[in-house]
């Protein structure tokens, strides 16, 4: 045994650092596989925002649930999903979390309370409210966390779900990852008032936190989760963060100039990984990096070795009762 924390162990600064590195490394690996054409459709890279997923998930218990977004790999990994199976999913393999049917934007692992990444902005936020409601109805001690971006703050459905969650005092934590942009649109020109102000207007306790600092995010999330679990109703965190890469890998092929190289460089200077590494005893970060590199090499191998699904099964799982739809050729 290495004596190093495992990939889902977020209870110590070392475990949290390791997860930050795992997400970063996973995304770098995925970027390479997009470039080589092995991953179809591209990804929305999470690089830069890792401290949010890690900080929040470090405050969760195994029974808690999350909903995620189009930029979901970090959330899915931090909640404990197997990187091998997430990567296999991105490659459309049968060994993937969703048997290759969902891809990057729909990765889910219900056995871990991961109710799915989601292709529609704001959609997961409202779904988390339903998960919180059903846990409470069942008398279970479970909190639901909704991750969403600054862009989602302008979806009516999310604001409507703030109201439902607050009215019914549901155990849900809304986590807004404010990375400053919705694709090319600056939050400053899109969000009237403030993120926390919106939640506060519904009577939801709302705090702003440094989203580049996993420890700060964890502390704020832990407080909100404890309050929700004790029947105190919903909470709201605005995590100020930044994505270091483009909105989507496709962006590398476009000439978009919506943020300056200086701005990107400034935020890169706040990289959450060195900050988390600085909390560790000398030499530990390097050993953790090496163990992550090994884990990701194995994940890559697993994913590329995993079988492609057969075409006959293209409609498998469409209906829960196995209903077989008519084929498109009428045959």
């Amino acid at each position, binding site marked *: 045994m290495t004596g190093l924390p495992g990939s889902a162990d977020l209870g110590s600064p070392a475990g949290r650092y390791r997860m930050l590195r795992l997400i970063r490394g996973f995304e770098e690996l995925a970027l390479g596989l997009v470039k080589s054409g092995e991953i179809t459709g591209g990804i929305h890279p999470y690089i830069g925002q890792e401290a949010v997923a890690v900080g929040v998930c470090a405050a969760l218990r195994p029974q808690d649930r999350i909903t995620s977004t189009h930029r979901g790999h970090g959330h899915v990994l931090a909640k404990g999903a197997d990187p091998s199976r997430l990567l296999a999913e991105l490659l459309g393999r049968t060994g993937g979390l969703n048997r290759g049917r969902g891809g990057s934007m729909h990765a889910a692992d219900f056995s871990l309370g991961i109710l799915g990444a989601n*292709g529609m902005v704001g959609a997961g936020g409202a779904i988390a409210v339903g998960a919180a409601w059903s846990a409470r109805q069942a008398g279970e001690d479970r909190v639901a966390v909704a991750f969403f971006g600054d862009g989602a703050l302008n979806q009516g459905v999310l604001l409507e779900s703030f109201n439902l969650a607050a009215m019914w005092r549901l155990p849900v934590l809304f986590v807004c990852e404010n990375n400053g942009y919705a694709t090319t649109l600056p939050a400053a020109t899109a969000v009237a008032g403030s993120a926390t102000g919106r939640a506060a207007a519904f009577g939801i306790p709302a705090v702003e936190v440094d989203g580049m600092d996993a420890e700060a995010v964890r502390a704020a999330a832990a407080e909100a989760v404890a309050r929700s679990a004790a029947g105190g109703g919903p909470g709201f965190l605005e995590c100020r963060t930044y994505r270091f890469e483009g909105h989507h890998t496709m962006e590398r092929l476009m000439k*978009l100039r919506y943020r300056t190289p200086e701005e990107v460089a400034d935020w890169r200077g706040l990289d959450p990984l060195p900050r988390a590494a600085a909390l560790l005893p000398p030499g530990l970060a390097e050993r953790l990096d090496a163990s992550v590199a090994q884990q990701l090499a194995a994940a890559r191998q697993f994913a590329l070795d995993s079988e492609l699904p057969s*075409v006959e099964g293209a409609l498998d799982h469409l209906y829960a009762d196995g209903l077989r739809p008519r084929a498109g*050729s*009428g045959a």
Partner: protein
Amino acid sequence: MRLSYTKALNRALTDALAEDPAVCVFGEDIGAGMAGPTLNLLDRFGPGRIVDTPLSEQAFTSMAIGAALTGRRPVIEFQIPSLLFLVFEQLVNQAHKFSLMTGGQANVPLTCLVPGSGSRDGWAGQHSDHPYSLFAHAGMKTVVPATPTDAYGLLRSAIADPDPVVVFAPAGALPVRETVTWELSPIPLGSARIHREGADVTVVAVGHLVHDALAVAEELAPEVSVEVFDPRTLYPFDWTALAASLERTGRLVVVDDSNRSCGIGGEIVATAAEELRLIAPPRRITRPDGAVLPFAPALDRALQPNRDQLRDAVRAVMKHRPTSSREDRGR
């Protein structure tokens, strides 16, 4: 001049904006011209007419309807086809109904443009729909251009039209380029185009599938003479042109990227069976019933209409030996 499909949409918007000060454009990331059709419009026409919106589709669609009711001629660009599901209420229950419900006091000259409808390879379940049949079913004017010239001409007519029109630019048609030696001009809604004349079978192909139909027609030329019929507008449908085509051929195959049940292909086949000249049972190639496109690329492709299916269907309708005396009428 070499004209790409996206450039054609861009020129149509530019010309419409230049010609009529009432025309304005709403949409996400249109300031950056991200999807292509809105490239450079902000620079040329300014933020009073090119409105880069927050991610509030329901609100800005309603807003465009309000603007249309009060003298503007708005175009909305929807970044992904499934956003139309989000604004179905706004389009079908508001925009479409105002004229009748107000006893003709008001009309809604609104154009909705979806650049990149249908599968884009690897965009999975929530980003691969091609929902034109839903709008034809609701009775909204519905346009699916297959070529750059038609995209230009039909978008111009859609914007000039006094009623709401939804224009679907199929992802599969976006790579199409044409060498254009003619003047681009508006093309009336509701008029079909025969891309290739034939004597034995009429293939009605929708959107990008026109190009597949042309390839199959060419390939089968030694054995069967295929007429390739592009309706261009699905609602209102050019039944007169289809009647004339079937007078010549008497055999019908429809290829349509909708789900099978209640798709436009079913309407075309039904109308032909009820009212037009057929000497063999018609066939249609569609997506399966209830299709959700799986992520894995081979599965995604397997659920879309393809050339093999079309070839088989053409051969199948040719095999049918008519006994009806009606055949003599056309020969």
